[in-house]
């Protein structure tokens, strides 16, 4: 058993551990496990350029989403506007530190970490340089990914606006639209990114 040699195309399904051949995928194709149906491998088209363009867009949108006010409220001539960070801060000051920390991490910190780390990996790849230690970054991206929840945050914003609509007039800020766009861009960016580029740079080069 121990001297058995396996072809390089054999992979194990991460959901059920079944060994199978990784098919040769055309760009845009996805392979699924024959036993449990999990995604085995994907082959995003034109990965480096597309994901780099999307990540740069995401970075710009992220700045807009955090600098400008999200929403404003107007009540009897008085006006309150909040940015994303100010919202977290006021929850912190209201004595809800753990909840404020949770919101800060999931809605602000983890999304930016994801964008930054994909950029750190992609820029040298685009320049044709290979720096050791990419694997660590990619693992960080993977472990942070489930905790970035801006799409849930946007839905939460809509719910709170409906709750407030009867109380005061609501003004949607620049950051609201930037966040909405950011969600779309981030989804496409993580779909366009091909982790195999990290392990097979020679193969990926045009």
């Amino acid at each position, binding site marked *: *058993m*121990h001297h*058995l040699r*396996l072809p390089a195309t*054999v*992979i*194990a399904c*991460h*959901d*059920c*551990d*079944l*060994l199978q051949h990784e098919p040769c995928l055309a760009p845009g194709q996805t392979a699924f496990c024959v*036993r*449990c*149906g999990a995604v085995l491998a994907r082959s995003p088209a034109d990965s480096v350029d597309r994901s780099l363009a999307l990540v740069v867009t995401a970075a710009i949108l992220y700045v807009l989403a955090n600098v400008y006010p*999200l*929403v404003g*409220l107007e*009540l*009897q001539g*008085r006006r*309150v506007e*909040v940015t994303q960070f*100010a*919202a977290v801060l*006021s*929850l912190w000051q*209201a004595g*809800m530190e*753990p*909840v*404020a920390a*949770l*919101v800060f991490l999931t*809605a602000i910190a983890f999304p930016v970490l994801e964008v930054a780390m994909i950029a750190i990996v992609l820029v040298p790849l685009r320049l044709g340089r290979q720096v050791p230690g990419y*694997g*660590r970054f*990619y*693992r960080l991206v993977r472990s942070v990914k*489930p*905790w970035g*929840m801006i799409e*849930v*945050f946007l*839905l*939460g*914003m*809509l*719910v*709170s606006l*409906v*709750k*407030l609509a*009867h*109380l*005061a007039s609501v003004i949607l800020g620049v950051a609201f639209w930037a966040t909405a766009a950011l969600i779309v861009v981030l989804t496409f960016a993580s779909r366009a990114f091909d*982790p195999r580029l*990290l*392990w097979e740079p020679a193969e990926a080069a045009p």
Partner: protein
Amino acid sequence: MGAVTARALGLLSCHACGQLARSAPVALPRCPRCHAPLHDRKPASLATTWALTLAALILFVPANTLPMMTTASFGGRQQDTILSGVVFLWTSGSWPLALVVFFASILVPLLKILALLYLAASVQRGSRVAPRARTRLYRMVEVIGRWSMLDIYVVTLLVALVRFQGLATVEAGPASLAFGAVVVLTMFAALSFDPRLIWDAFTSDEVTPDD
């Protein structure tokens, strides 16, 4: 066709990059390609899943019975639980949103806890029932769980926005703490569960069931 797993051949598959490596008698094996720690199955998977899920189940009670937020306005003070918030949305005419909040804040966490308990119990018993469906259930739990953060975000924004001294203010209630803990605990519980345990009930020489 016989189903041959990586474990049956003494191989470890890297959870980060998918590389297969021969299991070596080293204390902390690492992936030769990306240097991630390697393990045959997620360490102490079942015990961790049980512990975190049961903790979430316990905290689910205060999360739903204690007030999520307190609104002070012209009329006086009003305390809202998650459910009364849903009822408010429903009676004020925005029933699509009431359904969304009910689904995200009550149904999703409850179903997630029940699904994790079922998965842990079935693996514990070595069940061979519907492995494919159970794997799919696990993937659904992973995807859907994040949406229960919804109410935490709603409270955050309301507290920040409704600050009209003398007219109206909103305070976060103790349920937000319990609820946040439920979300985090169930997410860690789902991450610690190893779906390959479902398939370990089938040994390599057997025919894989269709479902």
